[in-house]
């Protein structure tokens, strides 16, 4: 074997800064997309559990469409096809004037896709609370909106902390798809280091360690949070 190891490359200028920069973009994509996915997913979850059949239909249709098309294909649709379907002026703006086109497109695509998954988690959380609390809320005179805000959602979120954490980590990992439309996030950055230095082994190892460290840190933190926010009287299902 003629492979020349050089682990020092990872700590030398400029490569260490490439890694830092890549991680920065990965985290920014993950967090922005998560805000979108969480808000929209919660709204869709409410719609799917609502008593209004039209709202339920909208929620179900959204979920079926977004989870049955591969994320990469959705990303390409947003990046290549969407601007062409807009009126000329708007399409031109999206293609040329929009700030950080690759980043913005990835955040939208990832956020809209993950919203369909968050929606399913929120729905299962609300379902798990049972009809009793909903009826009790209505019985004491709360409107349906207030039942959701004060009774169902706070409980549902506490029940689904674990699945929501794993959805966040999925977004974090899926952010690597941004490289397919030219965003230089962490995975793309390590490819770039490999390309410049030919030290692929070292570069991929660095990315692997960074992804694992972030994942395990988030998991540890959320496990701690889950214990503190545990809804009394519910059996904890061992994951």
């Amino acid at each position, binding site marked *: 074997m003629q492979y020349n190891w050089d682990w020092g490359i990872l700590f030398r200028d400029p490569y260490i800064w490439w890694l830092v920069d890549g991680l920065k973009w990965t985290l920014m994509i993950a967090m922005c997309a998560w805000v979108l996915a969480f808000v929209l997913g919660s709204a869709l979850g409410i719609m799917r559990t609502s008593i209004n059949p039209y709202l339920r239909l909208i929620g179900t249709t959204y979920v079926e469409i977004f*989870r049955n*098309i*591969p994320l990469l294909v959705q990303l390409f*649709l947003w990046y*290549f096809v969407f601007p062409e379907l807009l009126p000329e002026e708007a399409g031109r703006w999206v293609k040329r004037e929009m700030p950080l086109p690759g980043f913005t497109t990835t955040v939208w695509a990832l956020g809209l896709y993950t919203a369909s998954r968050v929606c399913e988690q929120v729905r299962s959380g609300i379902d798990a609370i049972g009809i009793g609390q909903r009826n009790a809320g209505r019985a004491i005179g709360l409107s349906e909106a207030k039942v959701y805000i004060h009774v169902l959602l706070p409980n549902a979120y506490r029940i689904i902390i674990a699945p929501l954490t794993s959805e966040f980590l999925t977004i974090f990992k899926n952010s690597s798809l941004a490289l397919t439309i030219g965003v230089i996030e962490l995975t793309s950055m*390590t490819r770039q280091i490999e390309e410049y230095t030919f030290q692929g082994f070292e570069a991929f190892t660095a990315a692997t360690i960074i992804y694992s460290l972030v994942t395990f840190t988030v998991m540890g933190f959320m496990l701690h949070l889950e214990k503190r926010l545990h809804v009394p009287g519910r059996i904890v299902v061992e994951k």
Partner: protein
Amino acid sequence: MGDFDFAIIYNNIPFLFEGMKTTLLLTVAAVIGGIVIGTVLAIIRIANVPILAWIAAAYVNFFRSLPLILVIFWLYFLVPLVLGRPVGAFSSVLIAFVLFEAAYYSEIIRAGIASVSSGQVAAARAIGMTYTQCMRFIVLPQAFKAMIPVLLTQAIILFQDTSLVYVVGLKDFLVSAELIANRDQKLIEMFMFVAVVYFTICFAGSLLSSHLQRKLST
């Protein structure tokens, strides 16, 4: 949308079909490989074999913490280095998928095995079955039957994930369509068509999965 060019799709059906064959072949091979290794990992963890169980758990958590694209890049680089000879993109990618999916399948299978009541295991052992026999004849058949809908759902996810072979340029369904899209400047038509095809297959799969779920729960 008035000038949507259906001919471009119709004229390229054979080429697109070749791509779809690669996608399906990869999916099927990865599902089988993933389930086999996943089952082994799950049994090791449930049987609590010392050290091995720890390694299996570490394997599962490790792979679940990585993006699939990174794993694809790793194996694309590593497989030729380790084997000492060039291998096609397909083999590298297949190994990446099997290793990656095994981690996810093992969690599903572990949950499935755990769902078979421990009373049955005790009963089987009481009538003199070995641990292996008990797994083979009592636990696994029931576990797999109960797991079919979830395994199917995971297979649909895997089918969607195979589109990521795009990053090493393996000519699957998506890459074939993209080649035509770029060559003939028909992006709208090709990407819409790809989306519709994936949607139809995955939606049918998820309907089947929930149908099986209902059938099994009654």
